[in-house]
C-alpha cells in the first residue's frame, strides 16, 4: 500500500466516470478516513465527448489536487487509453476495458471486458463504472470494499441498490492478471 495514490478514471461522457470518482473519493475520505480530492474535466464539446475524473487519495492532506502520473488508470475508451496510457507511474496499474479498447500488453496492464461483463453478468451496461470500482478496490486496495459499497449505496437512485451491489461485487470477485 502506498501513502498516496493518483487515480485517473477516463472514458467518455455518459459512462459514469464522475460518479465513480465521487463514490471512490467519498469511500476513501468519509468512510476510510483518508484524505481525498477529486477533480474532473470535460472535453470542449458540451456533452458526450471525452470525460475524466481524477483523484488523489492520500494518508495526509493533499495540496496540488491533480494527478500527474497515475498510480491507477482506468480507461473505458480508446481515446482515453491512448491519451493517458503514458502518464502512468512505473509501478502503476492500467485497468483497461478490453471489450472497448485496443491496448498494449505490459506489466501492470489489466485488461478486463468491463462493459461486456456489466451487460452480460449484471444485465445493465451503465453499471460498468461500478464494476470498475470493484476491480480497483480488490486490485489496489486504495479504498476498502465496505467503504465503496456504502458510498455507492448513498449515491444511486433508490430501487437500484441490488443491481449496483451486484455490479460492485462482480468487480471485486473477478480474477486479475496483468498482461505481460
Amino acid at each position: 500500500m502506498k501513502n498516496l495514490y493518483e487515480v485517473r478514471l477516463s472514458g467518455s461522457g455518459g459512462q459514469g466516470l464522475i460518479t465513480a470518482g465521487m463514490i471512490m473519493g467519498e469511500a476513501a475520505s468519509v468512510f476510510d478516513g483518508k484524505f481525498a480530492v477529486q477533480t474532473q474535466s470535460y472535453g470542449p464539446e458540451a456533452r458526450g465527448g471525452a470525460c475524466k475524473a481524477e483523484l488523489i487519495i492520500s494518508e495526509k492532506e493533499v495540496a496540488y489536487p491533480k494527478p500527474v502520473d497515475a498510480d491507477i488508470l482506468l480507461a473505458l475508451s480508446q481515446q482515453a487509453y491512448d491519451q493517458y496510457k503514458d502518464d502512468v507511474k512505473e509501478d502503476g496499474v492500467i485497468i483497461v476495458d478490453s471489450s472497448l479498447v485496443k491496448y498494449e500488453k505490459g506489466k501492470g496492464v489489466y485488461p478486463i471486458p468491463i462493459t461486456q461483463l456489466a451487460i452480460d453478468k449484471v444485465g445493465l451496461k451503465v453499471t460498468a463504472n461500478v464494476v470498475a470500482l470493484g476491480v480497483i478496490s480488490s486490485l489496489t486496495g486504495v479504498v476498502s470494499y465496505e467503504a465503496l459499497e456504502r458510498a455507492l449505496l448513498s449515491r444511486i437512485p433508490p430501487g437500484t441498490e441490488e443491481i449496483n451491489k451486484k455490479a460492485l461485487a462482480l468487480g471485486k470477485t473477478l480474477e486479475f492478471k496483468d498482461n505481460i
Partner: protein
Amino acid sequence: MLFYKLYKDADGRKVGFVQGNEACVEAALLAGMRFFAGYPITPSSEIAAVSAEKLPMLGGRFIQMEDEISSMGAIIGGSMTGKKTMTATSGPGFSLKQENLGYAIINEVPCVIVNVQRGGPSTGLPTQIAQADVMQARWGTHGDHPIIAISPASVSQVVTSTIRAFNLAEKYRTPVILLMDETLGHMREKIVLPREDEIELIDRKQTEDTPEEFKPFATKHGDVPLFAPYGKGYRYNITGLIHDEAGFPTTKTDEVVSLLDRLHSKINDNLDDIVEVCEFQTEDADTLLVSFGSATRSCISAMEKGRAEGKKIGVLQLLTVWPFAEKQIVKLTEKIKNVFVVEMNMGQIIGEVSRCSHRDAVVTGINKYNGIYITPQEILEKVKESR
C-alpha cells in the same frame, strides 16, 4: 437534485465529500443565509441549484432572477429586511453586478457575492480555471469604495471562508466577495461542518434607539452604523446618492467626506480583524511564494518539493485578498527578498505585492493563464530560473 449526501460523524458534526460549490451553500446555511437570488452561469450554477433545494427546508427562500443585475438588487432588498443574503456568479455576471455592488457598499448592506472565476475576458473559457477577476473585485464598481474579498484554496477553506464572509459582511455592514474558481467550485473534498455550538456567528448589531431617535447612518456607535430591519417601525430611507446620517441625499461637502471616509475607515481601521493570511514555513525561508485561492495549493506542493531539494521556500496565502495584506507583506519582505507572486492570470495582485514589498525585495511573477491549473513543477522551475 442534490448530488451529495451528508453524514453525521461521531462528534455529531456533518461530514461529506462535496464540491466547493456545494460546500459554499452548506456553510452559508450554517452562517445563517436565508435568501438567495441568482442567475445561472458556469461554473457557479451548482450554488444556485443547491440553494434552491435546501433553503426552503430552513424556511429560507430562493429565487431565480431574470439576470445578474436583478439578482444583486434582490439580495440587497432582501438584506434590508434583516435576512442574510447571498448571490453567486462568474466573470460575465460579476461584471453585470458591479453597479448594484456599489449601491450595497454605499448603503452598508451586508451580503455575500460569490464569484467562481473562469477564464476570461468576455465569455472566455467558461469551464476552465482562472484567477483573473481579483483586480476587478477591488475596482470593478465606479467611484471610491472599499471592498472585502476572501479567496479560499480548498473545499474546507470554502466552508470557513463562507462563514467568515457572512460574519464580516454583518460585522462591517458591507458586501463581501468570495472569490473561488472553476476547479475549486467543482472539486470534491471531505468537509466537516462545525456544529452550531462550535461556530461564532455574527449578526449585524441592531439599534436600540427608538424609531424617532434612530438615524440609519449615525456614527455615534463607532464606524459601523447600527441596523434596523425594514418592517419594524424604523421608517428610514436608503439611497445610492451620497447621503447624510439620516439617509437623505446631501451634497454638503463635510457630509460627503464624512460618509466616504467612514466607509473606508470602517474597513481600513480594522485590518487586523479582516485581513487573514496563512503562512507556510516562512520562518526560515529565503524565497517567498505569495499566492491566493487555488494557486496556493500548487505553491505548497512546490514548497514541499523544493524543500526536499534543500530550497528554503515559504508560502504566503492571502486568504483575504482585499483589503490587501500590506502589513504582512512589508514584514515578510523585510527578511525574505526573493519574492514570487503566483497567480493564474497575467499578473494582477503582483502590482500590490510590488508596491508593498521592501525596497530591496525582488518581486517576480509566476503566471499561468491557459485555462489549466498551475503545477508545482512549473512554479519550481520558474523559481530556479530566476535565481
